[in-house]
């Protein structure tokens, strides 16, 4: 099973997008979801989610509240805010610009 590191700087994008798609998730679910959706290609060092989530909390992109999991354990659920959505749109357009540019460089004969 060959896994690739995620490109630097895209962790926020992945988290934001995951939350946008799935609503409220806790950290473990976010990690699983990214891995699942990328069909196991993208590997995130799972722990690094947490500093990223803390930063997103400060920035106000997400809010968090405590709830209970299916297994009846306390878990912190993260949810996108309006400013988080705006940030997501920004990050996507940025990402696409970069990818587009890289693609053009690659394809230019």
């Amino acid at each position, binding site marked *: 099973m060959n896994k690739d590191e995620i490109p630097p700087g895209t962790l926020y994008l992945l988290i934001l997008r995951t939350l946008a798609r799935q609503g409220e998730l806790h950290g473990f679910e976010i990690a699983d979801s990214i891995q699942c959706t990328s069909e196991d290609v993208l590997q995130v060092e799972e722990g690094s989610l*947490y500093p990223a989530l803390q930063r997103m909390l*400060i920035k106000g992109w997400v809010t968090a509240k405590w709830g209970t999991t299916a297994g009846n354990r*306390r*878990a912190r659920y993260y949810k996108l805010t309006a400013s988080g959505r705006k940030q997501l749109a920004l990050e996507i357009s940025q990402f696409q610009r970069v990818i587009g540019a890289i693609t053009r460089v690659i394809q230019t004969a």
Partner: protein
Amino acid sequence: MQKAPELLRRISMLFHRNRFQSDLEEEMRLHLDLREQEQREAGLSRQAAHQAAYRRFGNPTAIKEKSQTTWGWNWLEDFFEDIRYGFRSMLRSPALTAVALLSLALGIGANTAIFSFLDAVMLRSLPVRDPSQLVLLGEGDDYGVTDSYGSTTLYSYPFYRQMQQENAVFSDVAAIYSTEHRVHGTIDGRDDVEEMHVHLVSGTYFPTLGVQPVLGRALTDEDDNTEGDHPVVVISYAWWKRALAGDPAVLNRKIKLGTTIFNIVGVAPPEFFGTKVGEAPDIWVPLSMMNSVPPGFNGYKDDFYQSMHLIGRLRPGVSREQAVSNVNVLYQQIIRAFPDANLNPRNIADLNKAHVVLTPMATGLSSLRHRFSDPLKILMGVTTLVLLIACANIANLLLARSTARVREFAVRQALGAGRMRLVRQLLTEGFLLAAVGGALGVGLAAFADRLLLRMISGGADTIPLDVSINLRLLIFNLAVTVATALLFGIVPALRGTRIELTEALKDGRGPSSGTSRSPIGKVLIIAQVAISLVLTVGAILFIRSLVNLTNVDTGFSRESVLRLEVDSNVTGLKSDDPRMIAMFQQIEQRVSALPGVKAASFASFVYGQGSWNTEIRVPAMEAREDINVKHNVIGNDYFAALQIPLLAGRTFGPQDTSTSHRVAIISESMAKDLFPPGINPIGHHYYTTMDPEPNADVEVVGIVKDVKFRNLQEPQQYIDYIPNPQHPWGYGNLAVRYNGDFTTISNEVQQAIHGIDQTMPISRITTLDQEVARSITNQRLVAQLSAFFGLLAVFLSCIGIYGLMSYIVSRRTNEIGIRIAIGASRADVRWLVMREIVLLVAIGTAVGIPVTLAGSRLVANMLFGMSGVSWISLVGSVAGLLLVGLIAGFLPAQRASRVDPMVALRYE
């Protein structure tokens, strides 16, 4: 750029750190548990699942730290960490900490205390609206009354009125009587009189300053329009609280001054102390009531009763130059247009020379400023030097300690601490030390301020000067503290962390270690010795100057003379009333008759109480415009009371009455210099005024020895004495020569006075000796404080020498061991250390001597009876420093000589 809500979230995190941390931990634990569970379900063993979960998660501790870093508070946490660590390391060496804190507290405290005086006397703005717009006409250094033409500091009331109405540059002008009146008055018609400080001001005073009363109304121009019919006063806040117990119905109360009853119409705000720093009037009275306030001057309508300072508030947009030219044009116009102006050639010449300057008035008037600005500046310099010595000391101690901590730093660096991190920690420790020292210093300053104020006041009544700790002082203190921390902290921090890791981690104290030579430490010691030399020589200069002053021949005998003041104004009599003249004589006789009293006499001036002086005219001698003769109106026994020797002729007696031939007694110098040579002045006539007016003609009947009149520093004065009946003076200064116990005599004298007039207020009971001592208050202050600081500086330098030498000896233990092993004697070793001290002190004094010589030139005008530094005091100071330096170094030297070579060498 941070948005506000983001900052708020960060701050809320700071205050709920524990909850945020536990939340994070729980979240991460859940993650790991879920992952582990998943792996076990996939069939892994318990241990393998656990490992897999951690592998995928990463290092939880590192992640936790990283999460916390995102909150951006780690610098703060590091800071607190450093402070905690700093406290621990301070407590680990309590002796060093105590010495450092003590010297810092003294250094910072002394600086703060002196600065608080500098601030109060010289820097602080008046508590009025826009003080920077206020200007004073003239330089404001004269106080009193003058009738001379061309005065640009004191002005008459009519002059003020015209200036106020005709100028084009001030939004308003106010007149302020140049001196305060001390009046004995009564409140609400009660019997007991009390002393009140009364200040006469124009009605425009409060409006010009922009001071609003807290109760009632301020004085207005209406109160000052016509003479004598506006008996209103504004009282000070402090006096309202003190004398009237803060009575809310104060506006219904009345004050009686002299024979006039005044209504209280307002209370000034608490921070307003008037316009003269060092005086705090209780009562402000409009100038229109000048004649009703004892002693009842008659200057409201007199064009040449020049006794007022004028201040103006510059109109917005008017420059100082415009104002100066407008004022000077008006000055000439107004004075020359006075109908009674005596425009003789001499007065015209004086007027032509006159130029009114405008002095900024933002910091108010002050005679204190004149008297104390030089001493304060010098003391500020002295305390700064002491603080520098303290800094050098602490730098040395920290340097020594940081070298002792080399191992600790090496270990920490080996474990991955960055050098900057260590520097930061050492600086934090320095700041911590400085902060504690600074806080102690504030406490010390608060105490020292009160002590200094008492010393400056030089008597029972303290000068009303606000030197309490205020915000400005605290800022000053903080700045000083930070500066000291940087000064003494930065070198040890940089030096201490420059480490050869492998060398330092090896056990031992190799001679190769560069720090053992400690050149910085030595430079610091040299600087300390140099500064100490400057301060000791300075202290010796000031002390010798003080001794010279105390040994000055005053011309009178200052011991065993009781001095007091009576306020004869309460009798309501004019001074030329025969009953008044008789009363003074009666008091003199009654007091003289007391057992233990040898003589008693009134005088208009006894010592250091101002003067009344004019030019005189001696027939057959050329008029001398440059010489002013001081006149003293006295009772018959004045020379006996002060024991001023009579050199020729007679003293005054009962034969000298208001109707008898007018007589005078002159001083020795006056007889010698102002009378025709070769002629006995006795029997000679002269005029006590410039112009030969017949009623100023007096005959010399006696010659007395010269005396000091206003202060001890003054050159020889020309003085004449006039008997009271011939120039009645409503005086109050009584001098009593006595034998025996001061308190007993003082009580008896007071009873005798009250036996003649029950209501006569008696105040300022003291001795002549104390008054003479008081006149050299600031010289004594400077001498005492500079001696104190000089000793402190030497003491601190000794600690510095001791510290450095102990440190050097401990660093060189094995070198010394080798020396002893190969045959050096104990005495040789001791000399090895002592030689170093002698060298340091020698270099220090060599640096210090030129600085001292330059510095002594700066203070030359404050020295009395000597010309600069004498070689004896210089050599004495150098010898003294060397001696205490050797004493300080003796213990380390002794320790070095006792080094056991076996122990020293085995240690390697």
